[in-house]
């Protein structure tokens, strides 16, 4: 059985009303004087939106920064693929938006499983993000009068999403990359590319540095600092097939977890409803089609199971527009988790379409007839083209096929209000932490959170920690703690290389993915999770016995990189299942089949589960320990989300 200790987590939420908390914090936190900042060294791991914005801002403030990314350039990161946009409470269109409404929608969208104070702060700083990015030259879409345009996104009733064509993430990342590059040139930031962090180093319980492998030479180096910030993104790739970039992985946060940073809500993952279904077993990743398509496309499946007629030969009377039928108020625009589950239900009833029967239709015929092909082309031309490129089918003539795919991980390292993990001096920002999205993230809110954390939160909160270490040197990299950590990293690498196995890393990754998507995907139940919890360790054991990694450490070796990442996915996957098993309720993206209403909707259990489940590593052969951070809702009363 899991042992539960009384809550030892201190979220450090400031006193005062919601509106007073952040200002109050800023007024009372310890400051580091401008001339003292250069005496501090900060390590930032990851240069996606969260990491690049943080590293650039630390540099501007005068800190000495060392930043790491496994990409070949900080211009690249998974963030670059975000299409839809970024939210802010500007209310430029006077449609009644406000900081409070953005806060409220995010809390509700997260199904009341996030911390009010953090979410309110996120909404508060959202406006500054838009100002900052615009000043940097992010070419947001404009109206004829030259002012910023907005669109509405993901089941909210206001227009608050700023966008740059279908490439918002790219443009925001190029913005923070440019700010970072300016600091690199000025010498405040030392940037290491193709450099993968493989271990966090602690001394006396505090984070003091990292161990890094140079991906082109294999050289293992150690780096020390006064504080370490992880901005290493999400772990959807545990599922093997996801919409994430190929290299996204959980190693950095998993290594931190094993060093004592607690991991929160590991099972809260978002499965995005509009992805292009897989075409064969070798498919390496799934492509997301923007959610905006649901504004004009109608989702349907054949009324009868195993109806193999081509879509245009299925008459209206034989079609089931199941979202419009089940959710008349929101129809095709229900939130992601609801849309995904509904699609799964259809496929489980053998109503799936396409050669592998693994999709549902997203049909634009009505919209084309109503608005004309030109309008649809203007709105979605790029997306239609992308779809055709991949599937060789033309969505103007044939309905698109879509299916849900893992997309975003709400879970991550537990952090307090200051974004510090349970390890002093170790911070987590962006998708790597668990903080703001509860059990389900709203569209266009991840970019907002990454940049809020990086530009406007951590540059302040880190000072509150550093101030106590003024005039202390970072721990020397000659200290035994660094030697031990780098020896452990070397051992792990050598173990893979010395293994004389027969199967590729990818083979194991695919098998793990199948277990996770089956038992810890869109619908979960006790028996399935128990099964996964016995299958994953068995597969992991087989992995260590039978994986085959060729080549050597002293050169670029992508199989070796992947081996370490997949090894960590096994353990992380296990924690995801354990967390899902513990949470005996349905909320947001987490749907426990045992907990649903008579008509199949999610049943939340606030009396018992209104908490953050934060897991502490207790060693290789013992179960992790659960800590609970009770969630208090003082400003928003939890209600049942209804989209009917």
């Amino acid at each position: 059985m899991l042992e539960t200790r009384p809550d030892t987590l201190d979220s450090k939420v400031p006193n005062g009303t919601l509106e007073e908390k952040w200002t109050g914090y800023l007024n009372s936190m310890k400051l580091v004087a401008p001339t003292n900042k250069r005496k501090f060294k900060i390590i930032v791991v990851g240069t996606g939106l969260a990491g690049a914005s943080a590293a650039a801002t630390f540099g501007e403030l005068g800190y000495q920064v060392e930043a790491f990314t496994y990409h070949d350039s900080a211009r690249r990161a998974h963030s670059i693929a975000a299409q839809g946009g970024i939210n802010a409470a500007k209310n430029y269109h006077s449609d009644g938006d406000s900081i409070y409404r953005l806060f409220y929608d995010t809390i509700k969208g997260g199904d009341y499983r996030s911390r009010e104070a953090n979410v309110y702060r996120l909404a508060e700083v959202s406006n500054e993000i838009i100002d900052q990015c615009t000043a940097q030259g992010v070419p947001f879409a404009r109206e004829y009068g030259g002012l910023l345009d907005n669109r509405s996104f993901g089941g909210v009733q206001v227009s608050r999403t700023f966008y740059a064509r279908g490439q918002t993430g790219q443009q925001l990342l190029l913005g923070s990359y440019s700010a970072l590059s300016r600091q690199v040139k000025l010498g405040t930031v030392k940037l290491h590319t193709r450099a993968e962090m493989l271990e966090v180093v602690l001394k006396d319980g505090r984070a003091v540095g990292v161990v890094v492998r140079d991906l082109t030479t294999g050289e293992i180096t150690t780096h020390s600092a006064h504080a370490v910030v992880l901005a290493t993104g999400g772990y959807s790739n545990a599922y093997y097939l996801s919409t994430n970039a190929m290299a996204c992985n959980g190693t950095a946060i998993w290594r931190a977890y094993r060093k004592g940073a607690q991991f929160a809500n590991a099972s809260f993952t978002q499965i995005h409803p509009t992805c292009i279904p897989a075409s064969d077993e070798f498919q390496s990743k799934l492509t997301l089609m923007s959610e905006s398509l649901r504004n004009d496309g109608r989702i349907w499946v054949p009324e009868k199971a195993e109806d193999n007629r081509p879509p245009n030969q299925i008459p209206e009377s034989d079609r089931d527009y199941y979202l419009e039928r089940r959710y008349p108020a929101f129809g095709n625009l229900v939130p992601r988790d609801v849309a995904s589950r509904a699609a799964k239900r259809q496929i489980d009833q053998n109503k799936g379409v396409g050669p592998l029967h693994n999709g549902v239709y997203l049909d634009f015929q009505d919209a084309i007839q109503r608005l004309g092909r030109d309008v649809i082309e203007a709105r979605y031309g790029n997306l239609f083209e992308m779809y055709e490129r991949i599937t060789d089918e033309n969505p103007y003539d044939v309905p698109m096929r879509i299916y849900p795919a893992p997309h975003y991980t709400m879970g991550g390292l537990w952090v307090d209000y200051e974004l510090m993990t349970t390890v002093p001096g170790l911070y987590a920002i962006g998708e790597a932490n668990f903080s703001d999205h509860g059990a389900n993230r709203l569209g266009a809110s991840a970019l907002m959170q990454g940049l809020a954390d990086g530009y406007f939160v951590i540059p302040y909160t880190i000072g509150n920690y550093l101030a106590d270490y003024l005039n202390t040197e970072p721990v020397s990299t000659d200290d035994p703690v660094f030697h031990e950590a780098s020896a452990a990293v070397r051992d792990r690498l050598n173990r893979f290389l010395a293994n004389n196995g027969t199967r590729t890393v990818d083979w194991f990754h695919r098998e793990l993915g199948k277990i996770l998507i089956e038992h810890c995907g869109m619908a979960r139940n006790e028996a399935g999770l128990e099964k996964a919890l016995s299958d994953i360790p068995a597969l992991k054991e087989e992995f260590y016995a039978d994986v085959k990694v060729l080549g050597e450490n002293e050169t670029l070796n992508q199989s070796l990189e992947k081996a370490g990442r997949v090894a960590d996915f096994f353990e992380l996957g296990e924690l995801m299942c354990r967390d899902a098993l513990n949470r005996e309720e349905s909320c947001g993206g987490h749907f426990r089949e045992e907990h649903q209403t008579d008509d199949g909707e999610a049943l939340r259990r606030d009396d018992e589960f209104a908490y953050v489940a934060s897991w502490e590593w207790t060693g290789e052969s013992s179960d992790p320990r659960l800590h609970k951070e009770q969630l208090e809702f003082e400003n928003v009363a939890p209600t049942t989300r209804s989209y009917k």
Partner: protein
Amino acid sequence: MNLTLKVWRQDGPAAAGRFVMYDATDISPDMSFLEMLDAVNEQLISEGQLPIEFDHDCREGICGTCSLMIDGIPHGPQLSTATCQLHMRKFADGDTITIEPWRAAGFPIVRDLVVDRSAFDRIIEAGGFISVATGSAPDANLMPVPQAAAEAAMDAAACIGCGACVAACPNGAAQLFTAAKVSHLNLLPQGQPERLMRTVNMVDTMEEYFGSCTNIGECTTACPKDISLDFIALMNRDYVRGKVKQRRLTGQRA
């Protein structure tokens, strides 16, 4: 489909490279080009041969990481398409496909098909930014930006930094990349204060690493994002102006 691959293998930056032939069997036309290479690599590993190293990440044409010369064409035969978006249905059963890394003096080979494009970062560090520290920005709507300017800036900003332009250029020049980056900022009102200095610094840095442009135009054909040659003209104009202005500033006559 069954294909023959002629692949460039090189053990390291200093090693001599060579072409090696491989069979790619049972390839589905619906596979992407990189999935085809994944399948070949899995086969190689199970035979105990070192897999082919190649760069990739997003696999949806936006990160600019993938970078293959396919039958002598950067990103292969399909126009406006990055390697990761190219599908095998564009090839015929029985084809022999030659796969090489980007070849340019500015992009040294790391291993096999992977090259070092960090010279692009040096160009950005030289001036590819607007100097505005976090927190110092005015309200975003204070400065209206004509829609046409925002759109033109976005056309330039769509560059994914893959380096196909350099690989396509017989001179190994980086004008299209640099022009896209310069123009993105120079076309916006926010970019005006540093406009000329930015252009000069970025162009001068570019010239340290890359060859000279002789207006051949292969770059724009190879570009998966269709970045226009017009941006090079804009950059050249600002470069000349910048040089003149700087000479004035140093007290010399134009």
